[in-house]
């Protein structure tokens, strides 16, 4: 089944994203929201791991959460799609379920 995973923690605070990626099966979607969006930005210590993940999963980041934290789309790693809340809803509908990594 296709799953949309949501991660809301900064990768520098908790290992939620790493754990999520370790369990996400090929073709899954991973949406970064709230403090999770920092993982989508360029030049971080986790950038390589995030880029690697793009080989097996689709990565998305919630735009309003990025903007709120002072990051525009041009700071986002290539290959990560920026979505708004309507896009979040579409992703939730397109996948078979949503799994939150709280």
């Amino acid at each position: 089944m296709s799953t949309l995973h949501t991660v809301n923690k900064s990768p520098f605070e908790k290992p939620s994203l790493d754990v999520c990626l370790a369990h996400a099966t090929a073709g899954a979607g991973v949406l970064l929201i709230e403090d999770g969006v920092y993982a989508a930005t360029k030049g971080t210590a986790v950038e390589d791991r995030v880029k690697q993940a793009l080989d097996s999963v689709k990565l998305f980041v919630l735009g309003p959460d990025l903007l709120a934290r002072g990051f525009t789309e041009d700071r986002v790693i290539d290959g990560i799609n920026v979505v708004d809340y309507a896009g979040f809803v579409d992703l939730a509908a397109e996948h078979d379920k949503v799994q939150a990594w709280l």
Partner: protein
Amino acid sequence: MKFAIQINEGPYQHQASDSAYFFTKAALEKGHEVFRVFFYHDGVNNASRLTTPPQDDRNVVNRWAELAEQHDLDMVVCVAAAQRRGVADEGEMQRNGKDATNIHPRFRISGLGQLVEAAIQADRLVVFGD
């Protein structure tokens, strides 16, 4: 499509309730059905009508209530979690010998079975928390 929403955190301390609100609003605007919004853990505090944020901040409780009013949303607060945290309606006040209620009238208190039922009935359960 039919969505169920679970909110695990209270207002202001965490973004969970805000994120859930914007998700729910977007889903409704797209014509989806939201079967139920279930408030659990500290999420029950989203139902306190005594919430008084500063004038220049959003009112998380009223915002949910207004959305519920517009779309006839079923917003359920878990009774066990509410009792622990002092969120009460008239029935809970009387049953537990308390001297006040604090729940916003747009929310209702019910059991955890309502969360399980929502997960069964809805096509998607979307959980927001810490």
